[in-house]
């Protein structure tokens, strides 16, 4: 089952029910994902919500469940349009986010490729289901369009919910742009469904900054699609009530013996985490790497994920004009965390800044836990509640470290 897969092998493991080149009922040709990404199309100018729809259109999805919550409502509604056009097997609206994720689990147990979207308070309302999905090894994909979750209410982007998701046993990827989101949705299914991974995946993006922003995206042609999910390649038997993980729910071990319960849980949780690590090779094969690096030989580095990367790219341009040279490490995957890549990229850095769209600084903590001499890590700047992060703020943080006098931003404009 866990046969090693050589990185030279081009294709990912896929369904044997269909052959590449065969057509689905909409006339789309089942195509290897690496080949799909190499099919040039003229660039489109789209919002992130439209990009989610367009990825779903070519992802051979069997079922999607919708529930409205800003900023994912438009994407969920657009998936409904695709269903009306015949691109999905089934689509309906759940009673709440908790119900949605339960319905997704039911469909995945039944052998379907499942996609859903949620955000902020919806993610938290659904939460119990996420570690259940992972334990049950259901390769469901949920697109999380991050939104603040604190009170008072906000609908703006804040990545705090990703902190909550870190230990659910799911794969967690963080898209910087609409382009990333498109690529990650497609690649996400292929990686999550590999027999030696077979885990749920949260493809995260920052709400509004990605979902409601019009940006240039290179898509694959609508005439091709991903090979379908093959439930018979699951590493756990579907719906077998006598074996883990299903038995844990119907007839829990804790009812029989605490010792059996303990040992099952301990080993299974380790296995889920090991499966996350095993996803690395598949992700690298499709996306090229878990990180993107620029000028990591420089003494000052920025490590970031999501929109914070975009803002950092602009801040680096701004600093460059003043002769200050800064390198960049973009993390594409948060689970698995790219430990080795990050240690290598930061080996020569004297100062590492971690800008974040949340006030907990979870990414800075992850970075600090990963690299030696972690006093080099400067957690910040951080903005919360959906506040924007002007590039000037990142640049000021770095200039302050260098002892360069800066204008105070508090008095801006007046």
């Amino acid at each position: 089952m866990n046969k090693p897969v050589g990185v030279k092998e081009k294709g990912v493991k896929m369904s044997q029910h269909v052959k590449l080149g065969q057509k689905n009922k909409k006339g789309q040709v089942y195509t290897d994902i690496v080949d799909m990404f190499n099919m040039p199309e003229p660039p489109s100018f789209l919002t992130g919500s439209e990009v989610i729809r367009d990825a779903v259109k070519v992802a051979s999805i069997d079922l999607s469940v919708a529930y409205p919550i800003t900023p994912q409502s438009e994407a969920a509604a657009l998936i409904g349009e695709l269903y009306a056009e015949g691109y999905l097997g089934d689509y309906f609206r759940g009673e709440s986010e908790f119900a949605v994720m339960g319905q997704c689990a039911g469909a995945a147990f039944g052998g379907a490729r499942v996609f859903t979207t949620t955000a902020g308070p919806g993610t938290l309302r659904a939460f119990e289901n996420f570690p259940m999905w992972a334990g049950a090894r259901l390769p469901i994909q949920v697109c999380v369009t991050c939104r603040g979750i604190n009170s008072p209410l906000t609908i703006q982007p804040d990545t705090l919910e990703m902190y909550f998701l870190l230990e659910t046993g799911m794969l967690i990827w963080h898209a910087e742009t609409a382009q990333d989101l498109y690529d990650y949705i497609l690649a996400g299914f292929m990686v999550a469904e590999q027999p030696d991974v077979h885990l749920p995946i949260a493809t995260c993006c920052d709400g509004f900054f990605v979902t409601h922003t019009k940006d240039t995206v290179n898509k694959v042609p609508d005439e091709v699609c991903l090979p379908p999910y093959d439930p018979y390649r699951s590493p756990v038997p579907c719906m077998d009530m006598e074996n883990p993980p299903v038995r844990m729910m119907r007839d829990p071990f804790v009812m029989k013996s605490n010792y059996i319960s303990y040992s099952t849980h301990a080993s299974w949780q380790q296995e889920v985490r090991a499966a996350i690590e095993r996803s690395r090779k598949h992700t690298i094969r499709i996306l090229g790497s878990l990180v993107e690096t620029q000028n990591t030989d420089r003494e000052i580095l920025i490590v970031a994920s999501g929109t914070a990367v975009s803002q950092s790219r602009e801040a680096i341009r701004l600093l460059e004009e003043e002769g200050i040279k800064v390198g960049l490490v973009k993390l594409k995957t948060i689970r698995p965390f790219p430990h080795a890549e990050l240690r290598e990229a930061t080996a020569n850095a004297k100062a590492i800044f971690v800008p974040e769209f949340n006030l907990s600084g979870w990414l800075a903590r992850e970075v600090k836990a990963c690299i030696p001499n972690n006093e080099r890590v400067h957690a910040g700047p951080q903005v919360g509640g959906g506040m924007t992060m002007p590039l000037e703020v990142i640049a000021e943080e770095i200039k302050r470290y260098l002892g360069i006098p800066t204008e105070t931003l508090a008095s801006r404009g007046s």
Partner: protein
Amino acid sequence: MKKRLNIRISGLGGQGAVTAAHLLAMAANKAGLYSISNPFFGAEKRMAPAESYCRIGPERIYDRGELVYPEVIMVFHPQVITLQKSYTAPFYSGIKKNGLIIINTSTDLLTEEDHQRLDDLNVAVYDIDATSLALEIGGTELSTNMAMIGACAGITRVVSLDELEKALQDRFGKKYVASGGTATLDEAIKKKYAKKEMLLKKNMDTIIKAYEIATEWAQNQKQEMAVQ
């Protein structure tokens, strides 16, 4: 185009501030420039503050989110100023030196202090009665956003009328799915016209008229504007 142009649009919910930014960005995209547009609002309701941002430039743009330091500010409704319905106080907070402010108003809404501060920054202020223009030419106040983008293009020349027309075709000429509020407004404006072609034509006429009068204003301006 040598430098990036950052445009901040402050309006009220229902006025089409978000659509205006999308149209400018789409027009720029059609002109072969790089552009990004995104909205910023709270609960989607009429008359609530709504902002949108449009960044246009000659190289790839990564920056997104609230525009803190714009070159151009457009004010779609007097209440943005009179009732402080903007996300920054004052509404021109962060405006760059030699910038431009376009206000939809029939009367001067700025205090002497505002004028002084903006003069110190050499910011040009252009008052245009966009709502009257929209009513007169477009036949509905819902075309106010068209007059505003026409004025913006007339002064800055960031996009041409031809490219704006293509963007308008893209946005209203075919099926478009947005939020419930936007969909309702799209329906409302479609009902104002007998045919879709009329909607496109009347709105384009509004853009052209505003473009022309703003161009004339810009030609008579003595001060140098960094936005041209």
